[in-house]
């Protein structure tokens, strides 16, 4: 299985490939640790997302990179240079703020020119670059407006242009689409992706929206309670979560608690509380492999098959009654009331004939479609 994080660069001292490195970064506010030993390596030119629930420390992490907060411990490097003693106004990063933070006393073009004027750039150069930035975000016609005269989506574009026009080494985005409605958010996601591809800049985005992170990012760091739980590509995060938290936070999943009965490098034997037997292929998390103790088996709804008879080998299945059908447009999910008392969500395959309510059903999956994760919470 592929190694998820290439630690090798920084360990050999060769950090040419990284724009940002966080090394064992801690941030304590009034005795409470918001960030607890975060290590991040963000590659040059990638779209990197920091994903997590509110209060997980993701925004604090971004603010540490921008320089608005100072780390309590640890080091932050930008292209190999320690940034800890560098004030925000000397860091080669620019931020798109969640609230946009546009200067309401300045027009759109004055907002965008703000950073260039501070650099003492010539009037003509400023004008050209502002025009170019306006074109990039399709806001040419609104140059003379004040921010208060713009819609949320337009303000968002201005905030983006104001940051991009300074040609930062890294663009930081703090929940950039959080304040937009669903349709606008989808459109802006596409535009962000396009901008990233066209500009080739390193983007670091903070979001709580797992769908947004999965669809936009090259790599994602999932944060929980001040720590990075897992870092990897969207498919690694989704298909091979390393922890129960990641499995539950990213996408929908079903969790079955059990205990390891037998361990083999390529196969785990697990017995559920109900006494059912499961075969699961172990995940290579880079840590010590699971060999014993309490675990949860994670199975995604789309990986489960429904049948009317138990499987012949008597392995990897649960039984229950059809409880609810959830029509989701592209597919139908059904809820099974299991004999163990829990519920299981199964995505019905196309063309599956919907059985009447209270039908006894068997939910079956292949060992390679499930994961065994330490039951830590």
């Amino acid at each position: 299985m592929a190694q998820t994080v290439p630690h090798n660069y920084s360990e050999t001292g060769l950090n040419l490939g990284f724009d940002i490195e966080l090394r064992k970064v801690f941030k304590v506010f009034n005795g409470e640790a918001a960030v607890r030993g975060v290590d991040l390596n963000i590659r040059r030119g990638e779209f990197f997302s920091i994903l997590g629930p509110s209060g997980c420390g993701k925004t604090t992490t971004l603010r540490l990179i921008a320089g608005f907060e100072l780390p309590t411990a640890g080091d932050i490097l930008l292209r190999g240079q320690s940034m800890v003693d560098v004030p925000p106004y000397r860091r080669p990063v620019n931020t798109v703020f969640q609230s946009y933070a546009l200067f309401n006393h300045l027009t759109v073009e004055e907002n965008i020119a703000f950073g260039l004027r501070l650099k003492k750039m010539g009037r003509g150069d400023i004008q050209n670059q502002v025009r170019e930035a306006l074109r990039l975000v399709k806001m040419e016609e609104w140059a003379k407006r004040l921010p208060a005269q713009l819609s949320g989506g337009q303000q968002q574009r201005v905030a983006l242009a104001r940051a991009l026009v300074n040609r930062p080494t890294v663009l930081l985005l703090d929940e950039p689409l959080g304040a937009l409605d669903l349709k606008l958010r989808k459109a802006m996601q596409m535009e962000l992706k396009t901008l990233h591809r066209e500009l080739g800049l390193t983007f670091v985005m903070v979001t709580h929206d797992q769908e947004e992170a999965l669809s936009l990012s090259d790599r994602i760091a999932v944060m929980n309670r001040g720590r990075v739980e897992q870092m990897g590509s969207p498919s690694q995060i989704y298909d091979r979560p390393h922890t129960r938290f990641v499995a539950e936070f990213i996408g929908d999943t079903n969790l079955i608690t059990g205990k390891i009965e037998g361990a083999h490098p390529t196969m785990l034997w697990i017995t559920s509380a109900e006494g059912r037997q499961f075969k699961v292929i172990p995940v290579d998390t880079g840590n010590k492999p699971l060999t014993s103790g309490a675990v949860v088996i994670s199975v995604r709804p789309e990986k489960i098959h429904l049948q009317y008879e138990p499987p012949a080998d008597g392995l990897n299945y649960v039984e229950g009654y059809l409880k609810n059908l959830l029509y989701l447009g592209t597919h139908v999910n059904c809820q099974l009331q299991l004999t163990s008392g829990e519920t299981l969500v199964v995505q019905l395959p196309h063309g599956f004939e919907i059985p009447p309510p209270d039908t006894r059903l068997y939910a079956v999956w292949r060992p390679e479609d499930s994961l065994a994760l330490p039951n830590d919470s």
Partner: protein
Amino acid sequence: MPSAKSKDKDRTPAWLVRWLEPLVLLFPAGVWLVLLLVLPTLIIFELSFVPGIRPGDLVIPSGLGNYLRIFEPLTLLVIGRSLLFAIGTTVFCLLLGFPVAYWLGVIAPKRWQNLLLLAFVLPLWTSSLLRSYAWISILRPTGVLNSLLASVGLPSLDLLNQMPAVLIGMTYSLLPYMVLILYASLEKLDRRLLEAAADLGATPAQTFWWVTVPQVLPGLAASSLLVFINALGDFVNPELLGGPSSMTAARLIYNKFLGATPDWGMGSAMSTMLIVMVTLSIALLIKYGDRRATDL
């Protein structure tokens, strides 16, 4: 469903409510204003056209003579001195008040803000007369200030009955207004804008000039104007601290009405001129000062 019309038959008609509501609510204050502000102002306006009127004379409006007398050198000097005091007081209040208000509104811990503000505004609760007398006892030749200076071997200062004493007294009296209004403006300052400025490469000093000051400009204008107007009309401080050399417009008006040689016409003309000046500056503030302000 019964229509609202048929149900509310004995309800006061909406159009009547629309007329009655402001009348009822504004009546008491309106009477007060008309009797004690509008009518006296009109009387003064009328008197200003009567040259050399004394108490008991008949009112016969007779031309612009009083206004022309304003342009006599001695009167112009007095008006100029008033403006100088008012501008000086405004500048001193700004210089002293802005750092205080900034510290109170932006830096001081939130839970201490109200208490600290109270401490700065406390002087407002004492009589202005009392405050001036306090300054007399501090500034007079044998006062607190000179005792202190003498005790450290410095020469004594003769400030009382001079212009510096007037400026000190007026600045002291009006500083709380400056701090109060600026604080209200600075307290609302969006800190995220300061971060955005830093993010775009602005040093703290640049952030202050290009973001903080424009953001609180409406508050700056309002507080400066309030101090300016109050200083222009201040009578107590120039009278008690200024001595004969600090004749101001307000003192001159007082003298024209209640002094040894009353001249109500001239006093009224000067009052009218002061009222017009103040009204004009407020009008200018409303017209131009508020353009980009959100609320104040």
